[in-house]
């Protein structure tokens, strides 16, 4: 035999694989360790939520939004109720707005904890950073339990405000929880940002140029990692985000490391926002009275929020009935995932795992 002839073969990363974060499959064609083609297979978790929502009233649909992106239910609630409020022209009292901001930012902290932890786990840091992240995330979930009664699927936002006012002792507990986060971020920084192995695994891996990122209409940390300053909270403020002082972190090259560092910095900014919101929490009612069987006027509305994973949009069409005529979600993970092939092809299998981790997908949101 003069030369060794290799032939590419297909390897299924998922649907049961520790690093696909749910039931998601990458059908990767590999030549040795190198990925030469990648195809995404999804739909294992499809529950036809968008269709089911057309049969339920506007209020009944709120719990559905919890279950799309189950790691950031508060942000999903918020996006949906904003769309309904836009459709029906409902105003929200100041206190309700502030509580929404606090909850959405806490949700971002919890979700980024999960994202950063799972990402470091994918690079092979054997469970240590993810456990540290979980330690702090638990405290946020305790806060959610305190306010809404649920930890993961909170179902807390209502059309016209929030379901309940903040409980007694919330502010104190929230400040205590917040105090833990700068320490956690510094710990992660010390352990990972200066770690040569971590940098070697993530720098220059899964590079997204600004053109690629905008062409694929990516949003959130993916887009900001590529050096594009875009944040719905700044570009199209909702819930009074214009009153708060915070900054947008952006990366340099659009590689996996930039996405990671952007997420870490966003956590710092979220802590800042929550502290400001707690400092100037207005009094008054937390919600306006809205008829139970809401029948918004004919028309359509699209509301978007900056979810932890990117632009989370809800599109609603009303035909003056008690339930939406059309209910559509713009799920950030699904759209962010569309750049996966460009990022993985040419890298190794190990890189593909890191890239997938850096996208921070939630399969419940991809498949809905």
């Amino acid at each position, binding site marked *: 035999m003069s030369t060794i002839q290799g032939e590419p073969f297909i390897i299924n990363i998922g649907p049961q694989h520790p690093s696909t974060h749910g039931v998601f499959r990458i059908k990767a064609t590999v030549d040795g360790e190198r990925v030469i083609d990648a195809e995404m297979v999804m739909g294992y978790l499809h529950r036809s939520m968008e269709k089911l929502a057309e049969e339920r009233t506007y209020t009944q649909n709120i719990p559905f939004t919890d279950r799309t992106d189950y790691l950031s239910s508060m942000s999903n609630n918020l996006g949906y109720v904003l769309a309904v409020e836009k459709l029906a022209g409902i105003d929200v009292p100041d206190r309700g707005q502030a509580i929404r901001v606090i909850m959405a930012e806490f949700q971002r902290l919890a979700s980024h904890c999960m994202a950063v932890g799972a990402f470091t786990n994918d690079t092979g840091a054997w469970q240590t950073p993810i456990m540290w992240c979980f330690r702090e995330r638990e405290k946020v979930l305790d806060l959610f339990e305190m306010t809404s009664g649920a930890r993961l699927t909170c179902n807390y936002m209502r059309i016209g405000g929030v379901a309940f006012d903040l409980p007694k002792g919330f502010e104190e507990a929230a400040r205590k929880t917040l105090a833990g986060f700068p320490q956690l971020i510094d710990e992660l920084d010390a352990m990972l940002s200066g770690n040569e192995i971590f940098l070697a695994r993530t720098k220059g891996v899964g590079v997204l140029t600004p053109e690629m990122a905008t062409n694929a209409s990516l949003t959130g940390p993916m887009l900001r990692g590529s050096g594009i300053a875009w944040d719905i909270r700044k570009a199209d403020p909702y819930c009074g985000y214009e009153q708060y002082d915070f900054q947008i972190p952006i990366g340099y*090259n659009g590689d996996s490391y930039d996405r990671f560092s952007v997420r870490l910095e966003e956590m710092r900014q979220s802590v800042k926002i929550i502290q400001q919101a707690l400092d100037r929490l207005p009094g008054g009612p937390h919600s306006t009275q809205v008829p139970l069987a809401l029948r918004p006027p004919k028309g359509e509305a699209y509301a978007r929020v900056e979810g932890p994973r990117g632009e989370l949009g809800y599109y609603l069409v009303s035909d003056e009935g008690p339930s939406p005529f059309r209910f559509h979600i713009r799920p950030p993970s699904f759209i962010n995932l569309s750049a996966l092939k460009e990022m993985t092809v040419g890298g190794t299998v190990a890189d593909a795992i890191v890239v997938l981790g850096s996208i921070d997908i939630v399969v419940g949101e991809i498949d809905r």
Partner: protein
Amino acid sequence: MKQPFLVSDKWYDIRDLSNLSNEILHQVDRALPGEAAYILSPLLGFVFVFLLFVLPTQLYLGVLGERKIIGRMQSRYGPNRTGKFGVLQPIADAAKLLTKEALTPRYADKTIMYLAPVLFVMPAVMVWAVIPFGPEMIIADIPNSLVYYLAVSSVPTLVIFMGGWSHNNKYSLFGAIRIVAMGVSYEVPLVMALLGVVVMTGSLSLNGIVFWQDAFDIWLVALQPLAFAIFFICVSAELNRTPVDIAEAESELGSGYLTEYSGMKWGLFYGMDIAYALAASALGATIFFGGWSFFGLQDWVPSWLFFIGKLYAFYFLFIWTRGTLPRLRIDQLMAFCWKYLFPLALFNLFIVATERVIWTDGLDGEKGFVYIFAAANILATIVLVVTWARFLGYRPENQTTKPRLVNEAGGYVPVTPASGEGR
């Protein structure tokens, strides 16, 4: 060679447990006819070393201790439900593994798949034959025991390849191919690094290396810091432990060559992995940390206690790296081996050989010069590592680790030299 201060061959002298085993063999020899004592002697060694020391340590340090320590590193408790402080956890684990169904994939090569776990156990037992627990406490005191150890401990690479290949599973195949590439490569700098030790001490026997360290009152970790660093990294690679556990690679390959193993077949791999790590810790403690010697104190305190203490301390290093570091990619791992470890091991060998020649020919083997060499070698290690890394283009100061911050939303913000250049 310096003899221990109090030499006694009384069986109750616990400073040297080999007296006890010799006493037993004498009694056996007297009671039983013929060659019975010769047959019994290795069995007794096996009982003493493996069943009384390695197995309990494996269960309690490897299974429970490791999980507890890593648990603490990850701010959680670790196993604490089975018995007080989880002391029954290893037993519960073993019972669970024994009662689990051992699945075999339909298209697997069944013979090889069954053979691999069995073959994996044998070297793990065999390497303990040459580990000195005390001046006399050694099952087989062969003159070239270091070569024996290295030869036997490279067998598992082949066995892991057998296991990975036999499954007919692509993930296992990845793991198998990776371990072959890595195991063969990392053997080279490992041997080169240990060659420096051999040149310095002039002995291929592990016990001889310990006697040398005892005689000169210095641990080789001070005299050969670079060799120690290379040894530790290479041994981690051979043992498949993070940061170089790419053959298992839980998050990438779903445990690589172990993917299709279940039940006790998996349990044998898991248990013997720990036994290998313990054996490697024993080797490291023997060669670099003075083995059973402790600056003359071993004449008063049982020497095997020092040895076991050092072994545990060394094993803790493995646990620590596992709990802290991410995993390298295979190409980075190979590049690291051939571009960094191998040249540095050669440099180290060159320095040691020079020192040895100067020492024996020019300085008549004066004891005090060892400390000068140690200081020189520590300095040389730092200089060599830094220079070599920079020579190969490693520039940590150019790396940017913090993102930029902007106040307003807009479009693309170009990377300017002022805001830092990403690498």
